[in-house]
């Protein structure tokens, strides 16, 4: 079973839901569907030898949870009355700043860096690529 095909189908389903959400003015459906599109697309890039490495899998699942829970919370919380601040912002805005803005850097960007050699690209990949290509490259 080709994983790329599977994730493209997930991406398509997410995109269709996003289209419906925008046309039918359903913000909750938009909140639920857009992380599906983003994570499935990122998964396409993360697939290596038909699977996603452990570190990147953890990263992608974390991002999905952060975006879905974060945006659902912000959308469902009361934003039309002011009831004090949390860490300088309204509670829902604090989720935006400290959750949805900051956490993806830790769970997405930094994890990508730390797991790069194990999950994304190593010397063997370059050797395999050159072998398939039939000549040496300047990638080393």
């Amino acid at each position: 079973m080709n994983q790329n095909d599977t994730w493209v189908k997930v991406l398509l389903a997410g995109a269709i839901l996003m289209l419906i959400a925008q046309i039918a003015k359903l913000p909750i459906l938009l909140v639920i569907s857009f992380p599906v599109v983003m994570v499935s697309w990122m998964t396409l890039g993360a697939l290596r030898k038909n699977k996603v490495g452990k570190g990147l899998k953890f990263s992608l699942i974390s991002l999905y949870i952060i975006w879905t829970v974060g945006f659902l919370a912000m959308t469902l919380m009361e934003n039309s009355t002011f009831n004090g601040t949390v860490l300088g912002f309204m509670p829902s805005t604090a989720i935006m700043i400290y959750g949805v803005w900051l956490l993806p850097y830790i769970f997405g960007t930094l994890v990508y860096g730390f797991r790069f050699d194990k999950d994304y690209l190593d010397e063997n990949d370059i050797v395999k690529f050159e072998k398939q290509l039939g000549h040496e490259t300047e990638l080393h």
Partner: protein
Amino acid sequence: MSTVITIIVIYMLIVLAIGFWAMKQTKNSSDFFVAGKQLGIIAVAMASFSAAISGYVFVGGPGLEYKLGIGTLWMTFPTSISFTMAWLILGKKMRFLAETRDCMTVSDAIYARYQSKGASFLSAIASLVGLVLYLATQISAFAFILSPIFGLSFKASVLIGMGVVLVYSVAGGMLAGVYTDVFQGSLMAVASLFVFGYTLLHGGGMANMTATLANKVSPEFVGPFGLVGPSLAIGWFFCLSIGIVGQPQIAHKFYMIKDVKKLKWGPALAGLAGMLGGLLWLGVGLVIRYKVEIGELAALENSDYAISIFLNTYSPKILAGIIYAGIISAVMSTADSFINLASASIVRDMPKLFDKHISSEEELKYGRLAVVLLSILTVIVSFIFGTKGIAILGAFGWGTFAAALAPALGIGLNWKRGTKEGAFWSILIGLVLNVGLEVSKRLGMSFYQDIFAPLKIYNGTLTLVISIIVYIVVSYMTSEPELDHDMRAVMDS
């Protein structure tokens, strides 16, 4: 103001020296368009950061936040993850592709992947349209900074800004832009942190600004979606994050990396710089609106002057000088990158599609001529749209790239079943729909007001989603492509 002008002059001399050095290094079209494919990761990361934000974040962002509240930050908050998306989805594939084909532009990648002149031609057109919009964003930002300092009109500032960028771009090509980005990008990221500190100081802390604005404007203004509502805010976040894979100014940077294993820490560097820039957006927009609401400042005649008013009124002159000079050089280097990409579309992509071969020296000569013609077009667009809101103009450019190019490039390089027909229709529909909707919106056309305006969505997101669906559905409806063996090797990597 003399301190500010002195700092700007010194800063500009450094930037021009970098440009002059780059001119000496630029000997052929590969140097001019892709910096000789010899860059390290700091150069690529900082150039990507600068290409993604620059004048759009430092001038347009605070202005938009002043007007619409915290929800506008969804335009810049993708930076914490969007570079990772680009590196993960495109980085390895684009760099490997550069080893198999003579690729310098996104259209080259589209042609290599699909063997379709139609798709490649459309991607070149999409690149041109988006790049001119982006250039206009940069030059308009330049004008908003220049006009209060020197007391010039907006249009005069646009002409001066374009003239400076023109000289710089014709001389140095991509090398000048990239190395200036390293210098000014690093400085601007750090300076943004200081600016944010001063905004907190003058606003009496974030909690005080939040409470005051909640009471004097509305709680929604300081809520997570500002005055724009969740659908538009989420739309911005979506399109400005995953839409990065359709941005030629980011994608083609992967051709320039010398060592592919240096892709490792690029997103962390670019993302951190982008987040520091986001702090400037957050702080300046809020504090200026706060000062207006408590009666300390008069309401702004144009919200894009928020950054100038803050720097002139509330920050130390040295910091103001650094930020002004940083914005000006950011605009110069980013505009330089865009203008060289656009000229590459004209002198490389177009002739190739009509089976016309021109030598590297001719490419260099005609590339410089194309830069001049593009500058004239940019000035016209700046005059028409420049005063309507820089961040919105920037989002128009970004959305055009995303809708037209992201599926064909971002899905196409990771899915062998993607076909040239899918790419063709996805690019065509994405481009026409996004430009059509944005122009209709600006012209206030009745069909847009009746059908699309009530949806309160971001056109770039709607058209990107449609473009994704078209790409996948048309690919499934057409026969599976036979990939060249080198392309197969790239996609298997």
